[in-house]
């Protein structure tokens, strides 16, 4: 379950939490957080061909207060580090982070010995829930990432898993 490291609330429901998680998983509101090339693939996923709204995640909220998941799509560099951390803090619980693209996973093509300005991976700043490799990852990969996050939240996978080959 994705919310076990969230501090407990006064009132605890067992069954109601399952229902709440089902609702949360199927209406993830991502925060518009396009940094670089992966942002264009995120927009293509929002387009009508790959259609992220089939998973209820097409409402891209600009403000962190109204978003559930932060899709880090692009490179975080040292000048943006504090802004990214601030945005993460300003998001209300329960919140999740999808690291989209190699730059957000590990600095990607900029993880070289001359690297003086790129933060090598979003997980250096805050806990990341789903990693989507690719540079940029295809829109289908982003959809798979959202399905994986749904599985992490609700505990079961609603969509059939497609095995390559």
């Amino acid at each position: 379950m994705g919310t076990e490291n969230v501090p407990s609330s006064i009132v605890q429901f067992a069954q109601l939490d399952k229902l709440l998680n089902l609702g949360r998983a199927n209406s993830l509101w991502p925060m518009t957080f396009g940094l670089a090339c992966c942002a264009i693939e995120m927009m293509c996923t929002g387009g009508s061909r790959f259609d992220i709204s089939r998973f209820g995640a097409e409402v891209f909220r600009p403000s962190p207060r109204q978003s559930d998941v932060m899709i880090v799509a692009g490179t975080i560099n040292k000048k943006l580090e504090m802004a990214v951390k601030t945005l993460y803090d300003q998001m209300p619980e329960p919140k999740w982070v999808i690291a989209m693209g190699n730059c957000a996973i590990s600095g990607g093509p900029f993880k070289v010995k001359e690297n003086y300005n790129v933060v090598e991976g979003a997980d250096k700043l805050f806990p990341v829930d789903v990693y989507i490799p690719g540079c940029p990852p295809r829109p289908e990969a982003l959809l798979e990432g959202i399905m994986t996050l749904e599985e992490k939240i609700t505990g079961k996978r609603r969509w059939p898993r497609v095995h390559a080959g």
Partner: protein
Amino acid sequence: MDIREKTQIALALLFPAAPVTEVPVVAEGPPPPRDAGVVIQDFPRCGSHLDVLCRPDQVVAVAQIMDTEGFFLESIAGVDWLEKQQLEVLYDYNRLGGEHCRVMVRTLVPRTEPVVPTISAVFPAANWHERETFDFYGVHFQDHPNLIRILLPEDADFHPLLKDFMP
């Protein structure tokens, strides 16, 4: 008389008694030292028509000539010649429309105290380009309106594109 000769004559006024010499082409290493002056280059080979080498204090004069001739400042680049302990600031001028002519103006400054006068008064485009050259090479542009870093975080204390920089 097309624009290239006109510019070349206008620029040659700055360098008294400097014959227009052919630069010996060197296949290896940094360019050979040569005195200030205007050299004609063949455009298909190296992409610019005129190559002007001038002293740092003549940079503003060259910029004013370019301004009157109707050029625009395309970019300012810094080069770090480590072996010769020199920093080079390279201005690219080009023409917007009309007859095509690209001029490359270069100045060499010692690496220890790289100071070049600013041309942002003549070309406002230079404001950002000079801030970027200061950001990457540490070339100090005299009386620039606000010479602070443009791409790196303000509190960075290194100049990354210098050859001897390694994080």
